[in-house]
């Protein structure tokens, strides 16, 4: 089930189920994500992959009537534990959404630094604010395009640039895990390529889980791939195996394009 490793996985999901009211969206999912690994989550529309992703940083529960059951261990500690605050979890696990959502009343600089305002600990690092902003923008491959206009409104950027800005914003807080929900779905090919390059490099520093409906993208950027269907985890395997020799026939049907 997991990729071969002797160390404790970064994320250890055990019997995770997620509901919207009475409707079950994710059923009894158990999966391990190794440290500094990129895991791609694929599956047809409505299979629960986005819901699953949102359970990993406790964003799922922000939807009306939503709840989750099961355990998600981050470095061995359950994030759904009573003593753990969702806010603390989200400072360690960052997220980039499908549609770029820069804060419209803030400049580019302030957008990137927005995460630094979230907590007193983060605010303490404010001293190196300019450095942090520059570094985050560089990692997001946006620095050269905006270095001269950091004070401009974030809304002046193109869609692809805005999404990279959102990536920079998520990176600025130095998360241990980065979750991406179809980040390039609404982007042009060049922006898509830049973000994929970024993801490929990010694995050296953090753990990444990316939901995507683009199989080629999954094949390009990930180390391991998980296939979801109707709320359940069907199969997880190293990416090369998943696409060449999947074990489950449903997986095979999906990756060869027979449905989805």
């Amino acid at each position, binding site marked *: 089930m997991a990729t071969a490793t002797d160390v404790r996985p970064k994320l250890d999901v055990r019997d995770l189920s997620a509901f919207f009211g009475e409707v079950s969206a994710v059923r009894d999912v158990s999966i391990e994500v190794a440290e500094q690994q990129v895991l791609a989550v694929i599956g047809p529309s409505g299979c629960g992959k986005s819901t699953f992703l949102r359970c990993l940083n406790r964003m799922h529960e*922000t939807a009306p009537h939503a709840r989750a059951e099961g355990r998600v261990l981050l470095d061995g500690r359950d994030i759904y534990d009573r003593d753990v605050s969702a*806010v603390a979890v989200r*400072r360690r696990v*960052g997220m980039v*959404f499908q549609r770029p959502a820069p804060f419209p*009343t803030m400049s580019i600089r302030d957008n990137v630094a927005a995460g630094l305002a*979230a*907590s007193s600990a983060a605010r303490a690092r404010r001293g190196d604010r300019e450095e942090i902003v520059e570094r985050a923008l560089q990692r997001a491959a946006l620095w050269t395009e905006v270095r001269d206009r950091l004070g401009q409104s974030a809304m002046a950027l193109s869609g692809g640039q805005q999404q990279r800005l959102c990536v920079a914003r998520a990176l600025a807080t130095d998360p241990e895990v980065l979750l991406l929900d179809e980040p390039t779905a609404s982007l042009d090919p060049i922006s898509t390529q830049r973000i994929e390059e970024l993801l490929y490099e990010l694995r050296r520093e953090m753990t990444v889980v990316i939901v995507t409906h683009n199989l080629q993208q999954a094949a390009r950027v990930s180390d391991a791939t998980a296939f979801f269907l109707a709320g359940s985890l069907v199969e997880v395997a190293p990416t090369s195996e998943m696409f060449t020799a999947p074990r489950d026939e449903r997986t095979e049907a999906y990756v060869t394009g027979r449905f989805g």
Partner: protein
Amino acid sequence: MQALVYLAAAVTVLPLLAILLYLLKQGATALNADFFTALPQPVGESGGGMGNAIIGTLILIGVASGVGLPVGIGAGLYLAERRSTRLAMIVRFLADVLNGLPSIVMGIFAWELLVRPVHHFSALAGGIALGAMMVPMVTRTTEEMVRLVPTPLREAALALGYSNWRTSLSIVLRTALGGIVTGALVAIARIAGETAPLLFTAFGNQFWSTSLGEPIAALPLQIFTYAISPYDQWHAQAWAGALVLVGIVFLISLAARVAVRHRHRAED
């Protein structure tokens, strides 16, 4: 039939043009520098103005805003964020009903609670009566503006590790601010012209006064007093006052529209 409809539109626009024309004509002739800087004079004396009334109106607006804006914005936030709770539905309905109550009733309310117990008219009572009128207006416009903030923005903030209250204040409220300011300005324009509540609270004052504990002059009050008087000289002053008052109200309404356009531009 179509002709009737066009006629209706024309007949509707007519009174406004008539009023504005008269205001300009009658008001402009009586308007001079003195008007803004002098106190009301007895009949027969030359000069005289409504300087104290203009200041008084500004002070009343200030007090009213100080009371009405925080409460209205807070209540609006509540309605937008706890939309479907029973309390929210009740508050929303009652706010709409309060919006339609006669302003004179609000004056009586302030009189009974703030004037009668101390046997004293005051600017504070007037400001609070006006502020109370502002609350339901600002509440509803704030609610609408906050609801317009797209959910992805909220989610983005939460995902960064913002707590609920920080998300609401530094992201959502900030994003909706332009629209909220517009709503506030519209409410202020509304109460700036109110007279009835002031009859029982601020009461009017012939002298310069900025004290909140004393009666205070106000432009609408002064216009009313002069308009119903038998003196031509005072009638002229009433027109001048009306011109200034309408000018103030229109300026504030204009500022509100500018704020809307500004907000749209920031979002492009």
